[in-house]
């Protein structure tokens, strides 16, 4: 049973008070937040009020929900009604959304208690949380190192015990990579499984909200709480989300695990060794290991760095100083746009807006954006062929363990390579998750990534649960 699952059960039965649970987590935040900087905003008072309300429901014999009293942290690109939502950008200065994201509504309905909004790379663009306008988040396992990104704050909050679970968003690996670097479980669900309504868009066709948790069971519970059709998101899948209950205890007897023989090289030896150990552990548990080829995997990174910036250049055009957020006044409207956007966006965001604008420009569209869409199709086709022979595939979640601050900031491309193994799932719209599987260099955690076909979450969690059992 997962820790959050157990905690919620005790709050529902009245055995423990949500107020006491929340107080414990707020104390942990008090003790170490200054060092870790996981949050852009801690919502201590709101959390206390919410916990008291949940206790009142439990005391009166009502059911406060499957996540009753579970402290949760939200990536600060999820809209929260009346509460600043910054995307770790100066451009959203002073903006308070007039509505809650669908996932925030669903968490509230399930009885969760929001303790704060977590730090991220500005607009979720980055792999280290060093691109935040409010300063970096530090890895709680080694504060000289990054927590990964872009959902670094959400990963660090769970790893540091600031929240029992958290939500992040994953456009090219932004949940799975920081989960791996912080030693927690992180899931990117099937595209369309979780509503994007209220998620501030980076690249709409790739973005997906997902959970961070200390264990696989908690990740499953959190995912089940937020998944399911939302008429407010036209790309939301109409069918019911499959139950993950049975997956957690099913084992992997007869499950076919794909090993990608033409996987792009580049992972560190310690990471490679843990991946090898994962294959061995699953084979020992009765799984069948099969070699598969995914030739287009290697082109994922290039295609991604055309498609994601192209969509971002359009999604981020609305930050023009006219209706909300930062405005830097100037002589005329065009000068105001320039002044506002130059002052409001950091370097990485500006770099991607320019890349994306170029990729969509007249005369370049076919060569760049159009070709990237073809690669995207190839990846989906290659995945479909591979999944004729296997049920899931394993890769590293990150090429390396957590790296020191500043080690990749001078070379954007070196930073982009962090997402080599995670990007193809976003391009295909498939689910994938990172599960901690032992340690690598400097005793830092290594995450193994489980990839599955669309709506293959049940088998993905089946394998993840087995890896979790075999890791300890």
């Amino acid at each position, binding site marked *: 049973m997962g820790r959050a699952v157990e905690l919620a059960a005790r709050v529902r039965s009245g055995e423990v008070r949500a107020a006491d649970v929340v107080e414990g987590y707020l104390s942990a935040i008090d003790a170490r937040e200054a060092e870790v900087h996981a949050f852009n905003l801690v919502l201590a008072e709101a959390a206390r009020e919410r916990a008291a309300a949940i206790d009142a429901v439990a005391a009166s014999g009502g059911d406060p929900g499957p996540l009753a009293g579970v402290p949760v942290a939200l990536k600060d690109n999820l*809209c929260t009604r009346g509460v600043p939502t910054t995307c770790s950008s100066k451009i959203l200065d002073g*903006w308070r959304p007039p509505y809650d994201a669908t996932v925030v509504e669903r968490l509230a309905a399930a009885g969760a208690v929001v303790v704060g909004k977590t730090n991220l790379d500005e607009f979720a663009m980055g792999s280290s949380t060093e691109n935040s306008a409010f300063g970096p988040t530090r890895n709680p396992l080694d504060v000289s190192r990054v927590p990964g990104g872009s959902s670094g704050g959400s990963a660090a909050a769970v790893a540091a015990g600031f929240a029992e679970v958290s939500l992040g968003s994953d456009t090219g690996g932004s949940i799975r990579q920081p989960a791996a670097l912080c030693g927690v479980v992180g899931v990117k669900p099937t595209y369309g499984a979780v509503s994007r*309504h209220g998620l501030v*868009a980076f*690249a709409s066709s790739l973005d997906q909200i997902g959970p961070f948790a200390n264990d696989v069971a908690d990740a499953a519970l959190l995912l089940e709480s937020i998944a399911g059709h939302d008429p*407010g998101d036209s790309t939301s899948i109409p069918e019911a989300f499959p139950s993950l209950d049975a997956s957690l205890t099913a084992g992997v007897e007869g499950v076919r695990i794909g090993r990608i023989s033409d996987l792009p090289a580049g992972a560190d030896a310690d990471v490679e060794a843990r991946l090898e150990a994962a294959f061995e552990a699953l084979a020992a548990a009765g799984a069948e290991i099969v070699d598969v080829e995914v030739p287009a995997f290697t082109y994922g990174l290039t295609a991604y760095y055309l498609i994601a910036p192209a969509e971002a250049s*359009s999604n981020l*055009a609305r930050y023009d100083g006219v*209706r909300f957020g930062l405005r830097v006044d100037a002589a005329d409207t065009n000068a105001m746009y320039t002044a506002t956007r130059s002052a409001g966006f950091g370097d990485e965001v500006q770099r991607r807006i320019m890349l994306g604008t170029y990729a969509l420009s007249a005369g370049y569209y076919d060569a760049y954006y159009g070709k990237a869409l073809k690669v995207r199709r190839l990846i989906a086709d290659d995945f479909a062929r591979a999944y004729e022979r296997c049920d899931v595939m394993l890769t590293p979640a990150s090429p390396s363990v957590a790296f020191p601050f500043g080690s990749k900031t001078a070379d954007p491309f070196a930073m982009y390579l962090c997402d080599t193994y995670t990007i193809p799932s976003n391009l295909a719209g498939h689910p994938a998750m990172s599960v901690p599987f032992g340690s690598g260099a400097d005793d830092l955690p290594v995450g193994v990534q489980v990839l599955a076909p669309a709506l293959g979450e049940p088998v993905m969690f089946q394998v993840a649960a087995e890896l979790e059992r075999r890791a300890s």
Partner: protein
Amino acid sequence: MTWTHEGFEMVVGLEVHVELATNTKLFSASPNRFGDEPNTNIDPVTLGLPGALPVLNRRAVELAMRIGLALGCEIRPCVFARKNYFYPDMPKAYQISQYDQPLNVDGSLTLPDGTVIGVERAHLEEDTGKSTHVGGAGGRIHGSEASLIDFNRAGVPLVEIVSQPDIRSPEQARAYVAELRSILAAIGASDAKMEEGSMRVDANVSVRRPGESFGTRCEIKNLNSVRSVGRAVDYEGRRQVDLISVGEVVRQETRHWDETDGRTHTLRTKEDADDYRYFPEPDLVPLAPSDEWIAEVRASMPPLPSARRACLAEATGQAPDAEAVSTVVDRGQDDYVHAVVAAGGDAARALIAVKEAFADEPASPRVPAEDLAVLTQMEVAGEVTSTQAKTLLAEIVAAGGGDARALAAAKGFEAMDTSELESMVDDAIAAQPDAWVKFCAGEAKAMGAIVGHIMKASKGQADGKAVSAILDARRG
């Protein structure tokens, strides 16, 4: 209806934007309503707030399909696309439109005179907000102190109807817009009020010598009446021919029609045209109307104006492009005329009576069809003069109905016989000898004085038409 200027002909294609008559916006639940307090019909989607997502309005799609069907288009699976450009009244800095895969393609519109104008496409898109520039001259942004933005219109559903370059004269351009307006109103797709901006026209105009390939075109914006469309197209055609005639070239540009000076002016040239960077809208899924859905929409379509004109013309013995026929059909009162005929009324008189006296009445006038039928019967039978009939008609319309026979009796109306009229004409000529001489010399206006005299003497009971006939006969 041909236009030529110094041996050149004009080639015109029209792009017409119509706001759809939906209750709510294209991608959100805010009301689609004209004339409300600024910035009251707004929501996160309308304002393009971070995290807001569009959800397609089913009714808007149905109305767009109606337009496609009315224009004989093929309805196809389509994709929404983002058209990216910065402007303060464009909240997301992109417009959700359709680009290379529009909903309706390959249709046509037949003008009342039978000319067929091709329709390339009719696609769905959202409207922008509205900017008002204050503190400067003429409401233009240049030189203004501040701009005020009303987002009520932002996100209102539009269909852009793009014609083929098949139009060859200002008259055809006007007829195309007028006919399109009638169709849109008839099928309930739009109220198509050009004065309120719910129907807006841009014209692409070029000129060439007949048989040559197309010349360089200019796009004219801001055409907000049928009359402006004709005037602007005519002016622009002449301007281009005049340029070519003195050895200059026509530059491809966007021009603004100025209603007050009757000219077009450069708005922007091709060099500073935006690169819209269209790409498929990732927040929406492709739209593929099923055959069942298309059939359902087709079955719900009312008859088109052209069919209704033909039917009314047939019933009343008029030509299909007669003014009375098109006026009555435009008002939607053709069913009423048919009802008067069914009630035993005289068809031709019923048509004229409705055209003349029912302008302020709704499509289904309050006057019972039977009442109008009786009045037309009395006129045919000579029980009242046409002048008396007019008086009775006015009273019946004002009262929302009435028994024409009882009213006529109460007023003492009865038609004068011819011998009585003849003697009144004798008296009138004797009283107005100068007028008679002038009338005989061919001055038609002089007849008015004589007729007026007779009307006065008969206290309005003389039949004006009969009097005119007697006068014409006497003049020889």
